[in-house]
């Protein structure tokens, strides 16, 4: 393609748009999505009326997008791959470049390189008039090709990794699902044994401890099952019932008070009014258990835990504040991400699932979970749920 210096576009303004286009391509989950983004958005960077993406399929052939792109100028493509350079239909006889996109008369084929040598495919640009493509800046074009090639390689790796992760998540979901039945059976058995104990029996406190351990395991299993479902892309299905959030919180606090380690104290500032609403009681209870157990887990001996509940406009708000080790500022943006654990937890055990699950439960209810924390001073978690 000949290009006079006067016809060349300055690149800098296009680069800002190119960065945005690259970000969209890089975030795409697979190659068809990259092709769809290019098809609609490449025009903001290069003056093209049509864009096709062709990628080697690993079996000696090519895959082309948009779907059914048998109309790509195959000879120009072969030439581009052979010469490893950009070609236009002007450099090959028109009769061997059978094009069938209405109105498109000029094509430009740009090879996509993986590294310096391997050609993994091509970007094919079409325009309604040759003058359109002759305004194209070659610097922008090559940067675009480079970025698309990187996005394609990343999408291939992601597709392969996603397949492995899906298999693992499916296995975790099956195992956890199968764990629930024996746990429920064991809990029922312990409850029956508790009913049979005479008043004041030495066994009672041991059985209560066993029952709480089984309930913890059940909660962890539910947490893992929710995480596996979310990882598989399934939205959380709530089992809502009408109830009082305050009563649910009181029940969680009663259990905490039974298990409160010596040296800890609870300061309660609870709403005197009921907080009625429609909640998934089991999951909201899990959020309370998680916030309260974290407050104890990450507090220093002798620490005070403050719990407040009340109403703020149309929302019920529950705050759990501790004077514990706090969360480093660098970890705060990730505190609700699955498997993330703050850098200062040391040997304190945890899965990194609890807060992520709690935030997802709040969100599924149309509410939110937030945190304010200063490392070494303490953390305040605030749950807000619509009433």
């Amino acid at each position, binding site marked *: 393609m000949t290009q006079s210096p006067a016809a060349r*576009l*300055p690149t*800098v*303004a*296009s*680069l*800002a*748009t190119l*960065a*945005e*286009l690259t970000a969209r391509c890089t975030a795409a989950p697979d190659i068809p999505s990259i092709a769809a983004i290019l098809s*609609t*958005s490449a*025009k*903001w*960077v*290069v*003056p*093209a*009326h049509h864009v096709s993406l062709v990628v080697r399929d690993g079996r000696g052939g090519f895959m082309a997008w948009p779907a059914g792109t048998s109309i790509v100028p195959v000879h120009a493509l072969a030439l581009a791959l052979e010469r490893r350079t950009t070609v236009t239909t002007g450099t090959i006889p028109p009769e061997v470049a059978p094009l069938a996109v209405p109105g498109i008369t000029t094509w430009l084929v740009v090879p996509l390189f993986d590294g310096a040598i391997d050609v993994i495919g091509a970007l094919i640009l079409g325009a*309604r008039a040759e003058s*359109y493509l002759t*305004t194209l800046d070659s610097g922008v074009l090559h940067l675009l090709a480079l970025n698309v090639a990187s996005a394609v390689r990343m999408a291939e790796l992601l597709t392969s990794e996603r397949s492995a992760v899906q298999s693992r998540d499916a296995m975790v979901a099956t195992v956890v699902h199968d764990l629930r039945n024996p746990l429920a059976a064991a809990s029922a058995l312990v409850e029956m044994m508790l009913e049979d104990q005479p008043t004041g029996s030495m066994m009672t406190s041991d059985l209560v401890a066993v029952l709480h351990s089984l309930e913890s395991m059940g909660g962890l299993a539910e947490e893992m099952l929710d995480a596996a479902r979310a990882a598989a892309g399934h939205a959380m299905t709530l089992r809502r019932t009408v109830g009082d959030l305050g009563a649910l919180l009181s029940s969680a606090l009663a259990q905490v008070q039974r298990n409160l380690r010596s040296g800890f104290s609870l300061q309660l500032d609870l709403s005197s009014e009921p907080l009625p609403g429609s909640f998934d009681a089991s999951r909201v209870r899990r959020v309370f258990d998680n916030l309260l157990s974290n407050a104890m887990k990450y507090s220093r001996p002798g620490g005070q835990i403050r719990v407040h509940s009340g109403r*703020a*406009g149309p*929302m019920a*708000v529950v705050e759990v504040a501790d004077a514990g080790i706090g969360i480093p500022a660098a970890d705060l943006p990730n505190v609700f991400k699955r498997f993330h654990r703050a850098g200062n937890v040391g040997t304190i055990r945890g899965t990194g699932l609890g807060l992520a699950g709690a935030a997802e439960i709040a969100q599924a209810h149309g509410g*939110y979970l*937030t945190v304010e924390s200063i490392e070494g001073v303490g953390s305040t978690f605030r749950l*807000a749920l619509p009433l």
Partner: protein
Amino acid sequence: MSLHPVVEGTYREIEAELGFGMVPNVFRAMAVKPHFLAANWKLFKSVVLEGRLPRVLKEMVGIVVSCVHDSPYARDVHLHSLTVQGVDRDVLAVLSRGERPASGLAPAQQAVLELAYAAATKPGAIPAAAFAAVRDAGLDDEEVFEVLTAVQLFTAVNMFTDTAAVKLDAL
């Protein structure tokens, strides 16, 4: 005094998603009506941060519209934002004078800015040539709609920031 939960949640979203690392004064000025703030943030997000037109281009539309209305707040905020995003200073200088760049942009971007200028200047009499140019550059119905909604949004923003005398943020 603690913030209303709706304001707090909206501010958190703005900080996380807008990319300025702060809540601009235009949104802070709306906090007195929490649900008005939330609705306007959702509208802004839908128009500027989502959709198929590049954000950079929609911010340029914001400057074009603000210049037509001689409204400094959105003009200066988006000039700053585009500078940070690496848009050429010469292009921004032309835009800040209320003109559209004759070079330095892909034809599709130039056509969008001309359409935005026409829509902001005389919405009832947009020349057919302005629509023909965006069509020729390859825009479909959805993308043309996005241009017009961006013009509508920034027109409303201009009215709000001018009437409420919103002060420019410390950028």
